[in-house]
């Protein structure tokens, strides 16, 4: 397994680079223009000059290698410099966003806290709710609990976030006035009071996301548990006189986790890509809002860098999933 992990990690580097090249080409091919959002009062000749100043005059492959060099060398050096204070990256060029003309690395770093707070918590709560619901629903198949769980999960999944989000804002911000409708990214948690304010502003977006995530994961949990509950080994385990609790929570659960682990591992990178609609509705301004704004504004350096980080996380977490498969079911071999 160790061998396999190391080999996959080595393989991941060219994979990620190829993915980044393909994404770069795709973005280049996509019709769009960084000056499209400017008012129509700005003449087309000036727009051409703006595009040239952004570096769009170079051929696509030159732009790609410039970006790659900055992404793989300059940006890590800068990050190192900021963490350690060593002067390792004097005057090296950094990836600049076309919208703000500032280093994308700094903007991404600014956005990570709120994304982790809101989207990460939403995901975590989603998993924590989904697993017990999935297990109980499967164990008591067709009970009222199962039926209710199914109903809520399906409604949670099929009613889009832009609907539930607005309903929550109307009820809890406008009518009841319990929670703010807008997230304040400048809030620093320093004492109990500011902590409570942080909690209050997180409640609505986190619940929307948790509902959506829980809906999905609980369905996979339930289905997979159902498959395993009727297996021979369960009967064997019961026949051996194991306690029902041990049978379900150890034997069945462990064997049912493979699809659930896949779904969870696939979801973790998307925590970092943010929750675009939720972030927009509650004005969270995390990475999701950053990405969608960059896409609207055709801010290619920003899109490219975000999707690159995203690709790295996907490759990494899919690898982690593969390793976990091996732990859950030692019969799985990769070599």
């Amino acid at each position, binding site marked *: 397994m160790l061998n396999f992990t190391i080999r996959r990690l080595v393989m991941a580097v060219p994979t990620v680079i190829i993915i980044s090249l393909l994404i770069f080409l795709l973005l280049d091919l996509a*019709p*769009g*223009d960084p*000056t*499209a*959002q*400017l*008012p*129509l*009062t*700005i*003449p*087309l*000749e*000036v*727009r*051409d*000059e*703006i*595009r*040239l*100043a*952004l570096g769009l005059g170079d051929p696509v492959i030159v732009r790609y290698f410039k970006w790659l060099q900055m992404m793989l060398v300059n940006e890590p050096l800068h990050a190192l410099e900021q963490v350690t204070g060593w002067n390792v990256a004097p005057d090296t060029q950094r990836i*600049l*966003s076309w*919208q*703000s*003309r*500032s*280093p994308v690395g*700094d*903007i991404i770093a*600014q*956005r990570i806290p709120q994304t982790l707070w809101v989207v990460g918590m939403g995901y975590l709560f989603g998993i924590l709710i989904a697993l017990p619901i999935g297990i109980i629903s499967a164990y008591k198949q067709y009970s009222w609990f199962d039926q209710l769980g199914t109903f809520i999960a399906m409604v949670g999944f099929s009613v889009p976030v832009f609907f539930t989000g*607005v309903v929550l*804002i109307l009820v809890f*911000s*406008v009518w009841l*006035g319990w929670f*703010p*409708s*807008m997230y*304040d*990214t*400048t809030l620093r948690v320093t004492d109990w009071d500011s902590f409570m304010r942080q909690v209050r502003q997180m409640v609505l977006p986190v619940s929307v996301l948790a509902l959506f995530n829980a809906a999905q994961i609980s369905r996979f949990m339930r289905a997979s548990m159902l498959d395993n509950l009727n297996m021979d080994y369960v009967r064997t385990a019961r026949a051996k006189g194991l306690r029902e609790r041990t049978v379900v929570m150890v034997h069945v659960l462990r064997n049912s986790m493979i699809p659930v682990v896949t779904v969870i591992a696939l979801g973790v990178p998307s925590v970092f890509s943010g929750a675009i609609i939720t*972030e*927009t*509705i*509650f*004005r*969270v*301004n995390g990475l999701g*809002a*950053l990405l969608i*704004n960059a*896409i*609207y*504004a*055709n801010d290619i350096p920003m899109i490219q860098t975000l999707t690159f980080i995203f690709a790295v996380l996907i490759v990494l977490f899919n690898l982690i999933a593969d390793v976990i498969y091996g732990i859950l079911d030692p019969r799985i071999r990769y070599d």
Partner: protein
Amino acid sequence: MRLKATLWGAAAALALVPAAAMAERERGSSGHLNIIYWQAVSTMNPFLSGGTKEMNASSIVLEPLARFDAAGELVAWLAEEIPTLDNGGVSEDLKTITWRLKEGLLWSDGTPVTAADVVFTHEYCTHPEGGCSYRDRFAGIESVVAEDDHTVVITFEDATPNPYIPFVGAGSPIIQQAQFQNCLGARAPECTDANFAPVGTGPYVVTDFRPNDVIQFEANPNYRVPTQPYFATITWAGGGDATGAARAVFQTGEMDYAWNLQLAPEVIEQMQSGGQGELLVDFGPLMERIELNFTDVSADLPDDERGTRMHPHPILTDIRVREALSRAIDRELLTEIGYGPTGRATCNFIVAPPAMASPNNDNCLVQDMDRANELLDEAGWERGPDGIRTRDGMRLELLFNTSTNAVRQDFQALIQQWWREIGVDTRLRNIDAGVFFGSDPSSPDTYVKFWADVQMYASLFEGTDPTPHLEQRRCGREPRPETQWPGQNINRYCNPEYDALWAELNREPDPERRQELVIALNDMFVQDFAHLPLVARGRVSAKSTDLGGVVMNVWDSEHWNQAEWYRITE
């Protein structure tokens, strides 16, 4: 540009602040102000962005020599007075203009503002590698020279009847030479600190800037009016959507001011009924229109001939068809449904300033289906069995493009129905705004390329002088494939009489005569039914009821008088 009224404007601005209340207010006494821009600000340097939101945010830090007040009149801002022919500030040959800075002006860092800063601003924005968004403000300038510390002389290449473009208005503010001198040309984006927190002369300074998220301001300690600004600090939040921003002002009271609320009239009305906030609307040159294509865009043509003058449009080159399309539209109804109080039905190409809006075309405001049918009958289009007209085997069918936007899709549906009633079939298409308003030459869907028969969008012009806007419709200004499709004559209109009249306008210095010429050009263009004006759209923002001193301004940044905003206390 009537400068006589300059004083009037200043007097009006003073009158807006009740004298009794003014005595009590002093710098910072109103506390904290919350502003929400649902499209967040990405930089504080307007020269590097060009977007309206960046221009508005930077306008409370960076200021021009003169700006427009709410009535569209010039007001001296950093300049002592407006230079004119009468006071000798503008030379007789209309080639030079001399600006004098106010005495004792300080940057927010305490250093004096000098003419050298003005000269440097010109140099910064005209640097060939800088990609400055407001470069066209400095077009036709031969030199900008500092005569002494307080005097700047701008010399134009040709006689310029309207010299109030460079350093005038929110799109042309003065930046500090000391801060930006190492940021010229290609180095401009490297000066992140300067771009995010420019040193300015305005009422506020940036204390924290997060691109596309939030800006924090505090009062400028060196602001030239000692009692202003009244608000000590501002949080300028960004992001979310228009509905959320409106809700934060009208319903939850989390925000004091929200910008650009393009929402359905009923939605705004309902939110407003809570009484927590009020809508601010004023009308400028922004106008929603339908452009009619004069060239054939059939997909059967080769790409480099499609949409060019080589192939005239088989249907729309007939003025009777164009007029019929116009007659079939009920502009008042469109306005009521799409914009409510924030729009006005119009039949003019130039809708503002009010003195330049033609009074001669209002007959198109009334929908006239009979006349439309008559015109099409005359033109030889006869109804087929499905109700759609044909002529020589050709169906009267049009492709109708617009950008994606709820109001525009409603308009498309309505217009499609009206046109079907007069026997015109319409295929609708909506295109992502980023593509539609972009100018990627490889995309068939940009508004410049206009590979459709009709398209709808809104356009405007900068400042109060429509001359450059009128110039766009001259022959030879149309987008062409040879030049990779730049050009602003979107509908490929070409009329030698129009061109001659425009040339006359471009030479004319007399304001009264200029107005007549603008109206004549406007009438010629719209009476040719070369494009169909629909709705003059206002700037729409909202403020909470306890926010005072706000004066909506469509000619400049809507934060032009930010220093005078205050909290109304009982």
